[in-house]
């Protein structure tokens, strides 16, 4: 029998090519005769486009064309971009036009496109396109956007409210009226980005001989992109092939279908030449979708022992200028807040505001880091005021494992009641506390303080709905060379999708891991697909792989039994062979069986025999699978500089059964790094006119190797009962509770000064400001004098 691959630390099949510099990212695809595109983007956050004059640009040598909306196919002229996740609660169903027709609503919006012989020339020419704008008042700040008399983000809308809705259950007002303690917090979380290391890129080419339009795109969702393009270009889906080759990181923003994709495709069709667009980093800062800007005004009602009686409040969410991914993030945020705790009553009033900034859509965590931040800040506050240890107050409120499946009382974004399928939250927290040596911390803290060092500890707990539908497909096919081909609509931007699926298929079909060849991110490989978002691929594609693989193994057994004249029960399948257990144990290889499965021209198939050894499965999860975890962070704060150093980072993580611990640990560690960025560094700033101020990695800081500690990770595996493999998603859990835990640790370190932190990122400047306001420096100086 072959070695079981599921659960093993299998090295990735993706790596050798990437390590040798033989990866194939969109900009690596060589296409003879390719032309290069550069977009003309508006410098204003809000304006009418009066006139576009391309004369000067067209005179530049090497410029092939300048296209505006008027040159685009009719659907792209007349209609806005499709909305990916509509919802009845959205009042302003606004998306942008692929190229601006009249009004532009954020700085960087696409106005025209220049096509030239080189990217250099295209950029020169884009600067020569003379656009006459009539500027309009812009609204930048989220809270101002909902104030009376605010400038409107869209000139034809009465106000900036894109949506308002309520999430509630239980009698929260009664709970607050009778609770002995009520604590209130006003919290803010910044806007940041996914900031994948590879920017976006699109390459399109049309082959007139087959009428096939092929579009390479650095996307998390090529199948969705193909459907959208078919509509916008008025082509049949079958005549478009979308390929997401190697993609240099996704993290959410690349799940969106962007204006640049259909525009580049339309240019290639119009010109009969391949056209390529590679985004530069500044464009990425201005035009790739972002996330996190939210204000929370929330209160917690507890009894004398710190048991939660209710949570209520208001959430204000910035969607930017458009709503391309619907209102998923504020919705998820509102549904995530109760988290691992028993919250008997709950009400959150949610408002989603339009501003003249690029749209927000899910970025790793998707509304959850903010919700966890809100809930955990309230828990810390209650702990402090009631004199209860922060770990203890959480322990008193956990949903217990025997309460599973646990119904929270809300609806989740998948339209299903929010029911936690499985999990052991008390165990998760105690594991994280154990590896963090939480018990020994207060002694460490006093010892440090005696030396004038400020260290602190913080806890963050979360529950995350993962593995969302609708489905992901996997086709498994045995080839006549004995290899097993796997095709899926799942994609990869670094998650090791090919490795994980190969592990599952090797086990379920019965072949060697090395003999599985996986194709991802190509619409030509499988008819239906969805892609990567919501930590969904292990659940969706993983289970489809096991279903399809098991079905193919049954075909193999059936065919081998017939051919060898033995009973199916007497066939063993392993290492790419079917072997009879009886007689002189004859063997048929997968290659031989694949040939036999094709039948012979003119002869009937055996009764019950299928054509080919092949199966496609589309696993459709009934609802989300809820993963959970606890982060415990120890930091040291230098009051002089406001610098924060993370001393120790401990994670307990429950992603159900684990397919490949090497990969899952990597997801957790990488997710934590993103969370460190959100907590301490990353801040996409705009001025009052909606001008982006941080458009380089020198202004917008992402964590470096010296900023992110190596996490210690404990796995708590409670298998999901909702899918055959018992898996849950693992891609976002590392990020979600990190800001909550890190800020709690900073606050704990600064306890001698009674500093209270309520916003991220908590930059060194901000820490110094808070310390100044708290009179910390006088205190420190007098202590130094005393000691001297």
């Amino acid at each position, binding site marked *: 029998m072959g070695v079981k691959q599921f659960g093993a630390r299998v090295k990735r099949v993706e790596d050798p090519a990437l390590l040798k510099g033989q990866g194939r990212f969109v900009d690596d695809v060589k296409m003879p005769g390719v032309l290069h595109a550069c977009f003309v983007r508006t410098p204003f956050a809000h304006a009418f486009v009066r006139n576009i004059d391309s004369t000067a640009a067209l005179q530049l040598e090497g410029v092939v064309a300048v296209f505006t909306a008027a040159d685009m196919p009719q659907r792209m002229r007349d209609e806005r971009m499709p909305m990916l996740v509509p919802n009845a609660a959205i009042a302003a169903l606004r998306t942008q036009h692929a190229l601006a027709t009249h009004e532009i609503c954020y700085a960087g919006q696409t106005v025209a496109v220049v096509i030239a012989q080189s990217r250099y020339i295209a950029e020169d020419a884009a600067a020569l396109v003379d656009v006459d704008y009539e500027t309009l008042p812009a609204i930048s700040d989220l809270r101002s956007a909902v104030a009376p008399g605010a400038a409107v983000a869209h000139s034809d809308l009465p106000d900036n409210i894109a949506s308002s809705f309520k999430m509630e259950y239980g009698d929260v007002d009664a709970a607050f009226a009778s609770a002995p303690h009520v604590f209130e917090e006003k919290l803010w979380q910044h806007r940041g980005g996914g900031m994948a*290391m590879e920017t976006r890129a699109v390459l399109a080419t049309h082959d007139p001989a087959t009428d096939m339009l092929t579009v390479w795109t650095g996307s998390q969702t090529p199948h969705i992109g193909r459907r959208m393009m078919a509509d916008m270009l008025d082509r049949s889906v079958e005549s478009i092939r979308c390929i997401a080759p*190697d993609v*240099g990181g996704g993290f959410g923003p690349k799940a969106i279908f962007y204006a640049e994709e259909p525009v580049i495709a339309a240019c290639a069709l119009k010109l009969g030449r391949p056209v390529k667009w590679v985004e530069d*980093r500044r464009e990425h800062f201005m035009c790739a979708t972002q996330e996190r800007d939210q204000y929370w005004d929330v209160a917690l009602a507890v009894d004398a022992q710190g048991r939660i009686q209710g949570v209520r409040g208001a959430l204000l969410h910035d969607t930017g200028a458009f709503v391309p991914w619907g209102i998923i993030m504020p919705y998820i945020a509102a549904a995530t807040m109760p988290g691992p705790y028993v919250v008997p009553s709950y009400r959150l009033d949610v408002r989603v505001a339009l501003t003249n900034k690029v749209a927000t859509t899910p970025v790793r965590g998707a509304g959850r880091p903010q919700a966890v931040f809100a809930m955990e800040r309230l828990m810390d506050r209650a702990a402090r005021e009631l004199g209860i240890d922060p770990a203890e107050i959480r322990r008193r409120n956990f949903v217990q494992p025997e309460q599973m499946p646990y119904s929270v009382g809300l609806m989740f974004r998948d339209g299903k009641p929010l029911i936690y399928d499985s999990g052991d939250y008390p165990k998760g927290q105690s594991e994280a506390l154990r590896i963090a040596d939480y018990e020994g911390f207060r002694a460490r803290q006093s010892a440090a303080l005696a030396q004038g060092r400020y260290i602190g500890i913080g806890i963050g707990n979360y529950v995350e709905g993962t593995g969302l539908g609708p489905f992901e497909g996997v086709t498994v096919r045995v080839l006549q060379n004995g290899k097993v081909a796997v095709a899926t609509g799942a994609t990869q931007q670094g998650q*090791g999708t090919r490795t994980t699926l190969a592990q599952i298929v090797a086990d379920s079909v019965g072949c060697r891991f090395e003999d599985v060849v996986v194709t991802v991110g190509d619409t030509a490989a499988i008819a239906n697909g969805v892609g990567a978002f919501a930590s969904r691929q292990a659940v969706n594609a993983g289970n489809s792989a096991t279903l399809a693989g098991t079905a193919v193994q049954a075909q193999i057994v059936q065919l081998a039994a017939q051919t060898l004249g033995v009973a199916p029960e007497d066939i063993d399948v392993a290492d790419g062979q079917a072997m009879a257990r009886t007689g002189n144990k004859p063997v048929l290889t997968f290659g031989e069986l694949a040939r036999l499965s094709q039948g012979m021209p003119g002869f009937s198939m055996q009764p019950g025999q299928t054509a080919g050894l092949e199966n496609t499965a589309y696993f459709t999860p009934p609802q989300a699978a809820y993963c959970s975890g606890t982060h415990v962070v120890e930091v040291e704060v230098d009051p002089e500089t406001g610098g924060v150093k993370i001393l120790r980072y401990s994670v307990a993580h429950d992603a159900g059964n684990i397919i490949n611990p090497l990969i899952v640990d*990597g997801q957790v560690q990488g997710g934590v790094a993103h969370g460190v960025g959100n907590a301490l560094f990353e801040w996409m700033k705009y001025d009052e006119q909606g001008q982006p101020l941080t458009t380089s990695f020198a202004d917008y800081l992402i964590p470096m190797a010296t900023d992110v500690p190596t996490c210690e990770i404990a796995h708590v595996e409670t298998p999901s009962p909702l899918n055959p493999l018992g898996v849950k998603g693992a891609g976002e859990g590392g990020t979600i509770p990190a800001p909550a835990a890190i800020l709690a640790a900073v606050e704990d370190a600064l306890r001698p000064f009674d500093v209270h932190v309520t916003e991220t990122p908590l930059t060194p400047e901000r820490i110094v400001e808070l310390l100044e306001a708290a009179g910390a420096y006088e205190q420190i100086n007098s202590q130094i004098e005393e000691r001297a």
Partner: protein
Amino acid sequence: MRVNGVHYEREIEPRMTLGDFLRHEIGLTGTHLGCEHGVCGACTVLIDGRTGRSCLAFAMQEDGSEITTVESLAQGGELNILQQAFQDHHALQCGFCTPGMLMTLTELLRDNQNPNETEVRETLTGNLCRCTGYAAIVEAALDAAQRLAAAREA
């Protein structure tokens, strides 16, 4: 210009960057461009043996230089010790930052045969990675240093 030991002569625009020259003129697309403004380090190559940002240099400036890129590391198609350590420790996810990481660490391990964790981390501050959270890259570098030492002794 010599790249990975091969001599190249091309007529180019003076403003073409070294990164674009490597990628698009001579087809060595292993070197990646993540920011084109000198911060991310994805484009790192060795210029006459020292790490440099290929997005910030003009190809013209390097007329006569010896350039070494990620494509040179695997001899005869086999991963070298550092590359193998990257795979073993899962030090790459999307792989986009990886060529730059490998070149930076190639220089470090050449010049410092026994680096400690702090030295590795400080050396890597010029290379951003959004996927891995760096831990596995640091482990791979330290492991590669040991394996290289063992190989030298053998």
